[in-house]
């Protein structure tokens, strides 16, 4: 057998005895209390079928928009990621900038320390200057102990 036409169109299905004879009465009794509406189920169905291309088009547009958004995001991310050399330059710049900032900050801090130490030195100088007599006396005492002439000591100081 090579073709479907060679098969006899036999109906292998059976129905209970008297099924078709009672079909009309059973159907009429089942619809007895049901009101007739103005909307046809088949026409409603065919309306859905008519709308199918529009639903498909809407779905395609939404799908395309999602795809396009994904592509844009991907391209943007690619543009954001530089080539290796460019990345190195960026990192170098960043590191240099960091170092500069570090230096400036440390110089600032160092200058602050210097200022403070200067202040301390100046303070100590003031202290030294405020005690010139003590140092002069010690030197005079030392020189006298060394038997240096008093006139020479005054000339030296």
């Amino acid at each position, binding site marked *: 057998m090579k073709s*479907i036409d060679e098969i006899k169109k036999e109906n292998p299905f*059976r129905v209970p005895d008297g099924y078709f004879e009672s079909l009309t009465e059973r159907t009429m009794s089942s619809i007895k209390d049901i009101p007739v509406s103005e909307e046809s189920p*088949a026409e409603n169905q065919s309306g859905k079928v008519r709308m199918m291309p529009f639903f498909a088009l809407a779905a395609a547009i939404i799908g395309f928009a999602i795809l396009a958004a994904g592509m844009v995001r991907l391209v943007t991310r690619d543009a954001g990621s530089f080539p290796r050399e460019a990345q190195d330059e960026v990192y170098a710049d960043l590191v240099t900038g960091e170092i500069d900032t570090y230096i400036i900050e440390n110089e600032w801090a160092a200058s602050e320390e210097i200022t403070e130490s200067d202040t301390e030195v100046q303070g100590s100088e003031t202290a030294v200057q405020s005690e010139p007599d003590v140092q002069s006396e010690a030197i005079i005492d030392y020189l006298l102990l060394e038997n240096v002439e008093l006139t020479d000591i005054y000339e030296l100081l």
Partner: protein
Amino acid sequence: MKTYASEGEIKMLLKSEPERAFRLIVEKFGSKLYWHIRRLVIIHADADDALQNTFINAWKGLGGFRSESSLYTWLYSIATNEALTLIRKREKTTGVSLDDVESIISCSREGDSYFDGNELTLKLQNAILKLPEKQRTVFNMKYFDDMSYDEISLALGTSVGALKASYHHAVKKIEKFIIE
């Protein structure tokens, strides 16, 4: 042989005597719609349920039926929808896709008392059940119900070209399945 009222006669009665018109509809199209549904759902009890739902929905929507449309294709459209809805519900309930007559019959309460096909017809039915939903519907309407592509197009809301392609694919698949 019993003679039935023509579509034109039924349509003329729809506005003035809807109940009488509907009785004529059931008498004229009842058995055709039953066999169309039965070939899709296989089980008699399911076919009877789907047929009753078809007529109830047709009755409810009778007021919206446009006289220039074909009653035949309008009813086939509702019947196909009911049959496919029932198949989906059944597959959801059983949790498996029932794609051969034996498994469908084994899952039903009525057993195989309403199926007595020979080996070849059983194989043909199993091949049809393996088809995708749309191809199965188109094949049954064309092969068993001898409907034209224009009528099927009106009933299913599909273009004639797409129906021809569906039928062609269905026939090829069935022949391949039967030869194997």
